[in-house]
């Protein structure tokens, strides 16, 4: 039953993403047009509180519920992959109005057309895996 906690965390995430309207295509358009503070407020508060939480975890060397130290894996240092990959991601984010999480939350709202975007996501991931050796990283 210890796996239940991941389902519960997912449910909380799904509800928050829905009620914050962060899963809405309209909100993403509003964000990319810089016409409202809403999305910046959400991401900004999440990041500021996240920074404080991570700092506290490191400072007090906190452990997870299994008693293991909470560790953070540093991202590899590179610019090309983050800039190119990030830009390609952004093209799709503004097009579908959903990043990977919200795509699935939208399924719960019975927006079945999003299944096409999810299929695209799997196809894109597979394609990346197939050609990654030929891409600058």
């Amino acid at each position: 039953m210890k796996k239940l906690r991941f389902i519960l965390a997912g449910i909380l995430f799904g509800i928050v993403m829905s009620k914050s309207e962060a899963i809405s295509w309209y909100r993403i358009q509003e964000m990319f047009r810089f016409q409202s503070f809403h999305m910046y407020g959400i991401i900004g508060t999440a990041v500021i509180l996240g920074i404080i939480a991570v700092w506290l975890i490191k400072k007090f060397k906190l452990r997870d519920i299994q008693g293991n130290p909470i560790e953070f894996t540093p991202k590899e240092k590179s610019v090309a992959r983050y800039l190119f990959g990030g830009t390609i991601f952004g093209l799709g984010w503004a097009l579908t109005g959903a990043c990977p999480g919200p795509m699935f939350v939208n399924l719960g709202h019975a927006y079945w057309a999003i299944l096409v975007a999810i299929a695209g996501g799997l196809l894109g991931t597979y394609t990346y895996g197939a050609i990654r050796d030929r891409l600058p990283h």
Partner: protein
Amino acid sequence: MLEILRQPWPWYVSGPLIALVMVLLLFFGKSFGFSSNFRTICAACGAGKRVAFFNYNWREQTWNLLFLAGAIAGGWIASTWLASPEGVQIAEATVADLRELGLQEPKGLQPEELLGLDALLNVKALLLLLAGGFFIGFGSRYAGGCTSGHAISGLSNLQWPSLVAVIGFFIGGLITTYLLLPLLL
């Protein structure tokens, strides 16, 4: 109480709750990053037989698939019991911009033109969603993360590569918003 929960939640309620989700996963011994699920699903479907990138023990990522299942359930709960009666209250300026692109004022959470049931019969809408999804899947794996992995988890850990990725997210988003959507919609 239910009445209050049914209202759209303001950013200062939603932002802290997203940070809470990230912290919960850290205390569960995992890290918040949604797009890995795409790789996991590819691997679970046997993509590892053809492409080495998918040849790993994906079962260790089962927890994230459970999180994904929870996210779908969360969306269902929100739409069943917590749905707000009105359309998304976006800025007037956005409504005006979208009207110029031929979209109607928001009546629900999503534009019917793109994500409604009729869109399933609309070849243009389907191609937009397929292409958008493809860019998201390709780009998030190339960049090693999406909004949750980079913008939330990465920035919280002060990782500059995540900042570069987030800048990329915006470059791409602005290109789509200002250059592609006017051509495509």
